[in-house]
């Protein structure tokens, strides 16, 4: 450093590579000695261990990943300005509804085979009959009318005491009961079967095929 202080402006220019021709021998010698001193110092420096190099680079990369995570979180929690196209929002809403429909497992047309789909769309008229000559009112409640006690009212033939109603039903199994005078729930003796209703009592069952029902 002390050597540098004695360098002339010409020697500085020479070291900077700016003037190779107009420098005197004394300045050139001083500049060359200075260069040699620099090279000797550089060669005396030890190269860092390779392990140190790897550790430093790993730390730098980890820091970069952390910075990226922080950046994503900052983006998520910061307010942003968006330009929204109403049509795209509507499309996204439809997609959300469809996705939600899949998640809540509502059976759709694709859940049925073509034959079963056709059968499900078919409506079969099923006639229900109950002989109850002393009844004043007979109704029908079942899985087909959400068990509404007033859903289906049977008509009475005064001469025979036979109460009847014709109900459109989809193919498949249906559970039901007759209700006499609004309070007495009784099974259909002509049903395909009587099954436990889960409450310790019985429901009547019919299985409606696409061509109708045969009962006893």
């Amino acid at each position, binding site marked *: 450093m002390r050597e540098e202080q004695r360098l002339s402006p010409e020697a500085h220019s020479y070291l900077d590579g700016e003037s190779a021709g107009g420098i005197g021998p004394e300045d050139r010698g001083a500049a060359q000695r200075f260069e040699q001193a620099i090279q000797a110092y550089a060669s005396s420096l030890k190269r860092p261990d390779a392990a140190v190099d790897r550790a430093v680079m790993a730390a730098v990369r980890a820091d970069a990943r952390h910075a990226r995570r922080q950046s994503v979180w900052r983006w*998520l929690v910061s307010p942003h300005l968006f330009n929204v196209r109403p049509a795209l929002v509507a499309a996204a809403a439809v997609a959300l509804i469809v996705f939600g429909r899949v998640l809540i497992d509502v059976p759709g047309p694709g859940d049925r085979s073509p034959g079963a789909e056709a059968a499900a769309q078919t409506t079969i008229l099923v006639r229900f009959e109950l002989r109850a000559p002393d009844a004043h009112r007979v109704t029908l409640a079942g*899985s087909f009318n959400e068990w509404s006690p007033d859903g289906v009212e049977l008509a009475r033939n005064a001469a025979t005491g036979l109460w009847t109603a014709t109900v459109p039903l989809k193919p498949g*199994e249906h559970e039901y009961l007759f209700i006499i005078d609004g309070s007495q729930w009784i099974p259909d003796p002509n049903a395909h079967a009587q*099954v436990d209703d889960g409450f310790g009592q019985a429901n009547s069952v019919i299985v409606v095929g696409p061509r109708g*029902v045969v009962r006893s």
Partner: protein
Amino acid sequence: MRYSFVGALLVAGALLASARSATAQDVRAQLLERGAPAEFADQVAAVVASAGAEQLPTEPLVSKALEGWAKRARVPQDRVITALNQYVVRLRTGRDIALEVGFNGAPGPVIAAAAEAVGRGMTRAQITQVMGSAGEPAAAATGLTVASALMAQGLEAEAAIRVVDDAFRGGRPPEDILEFPSALTGLQAQGEDMAQIARRIMQGGGLPSPTAPGMGGRGNRPPTVPGMSGEGQKKRKGTSGGQ
């Protein structure tokens, strides 16, 4: 429009959650509309919402809850809640079997049919057999419904499973299989007893079509009622006999 993106995500999640609990809210509203006390309606809604969160079909639970309330004069409310919880257990069993058979996503109808079959005494192996021979969920649901109905009619379980199994393996469509309970009733009306019918089934005889000549009894199907066929719908007349 300036807003927090996280807020938007939360709103979307809430919308989805509200869609999932729509059935629970629906049944609550239906029960309240029919005069049920709020506490009972809340208990039912909680069971339905919990089942929905497990991806179980909720329609059978809703129907059973409405049935229980309709029968309130002879079914106490706590009995209804117990029955619903028992139904959920059967639905879980049905879903597990459907997944084991390989019905991806286990569609609601087949889970419901399997749960009903469990309730009527079908074993896990029998349910698995019917699902396996049906090959696809919708057909399996029909097969399980029919097999459990035949059992309820008094046919031995082995014969009920066999006749459905044979039908699927013979390539008969599910719509044909829905005719079996009527066919069984027709055979009984002709004077055959269940033991005879079961023997014939186990010998590979199957069940005849209920429309076959000679099938009859008091409840035999009458001809189609004139004027009953509507546009877009096939309407045919079924019947029942008098008492």
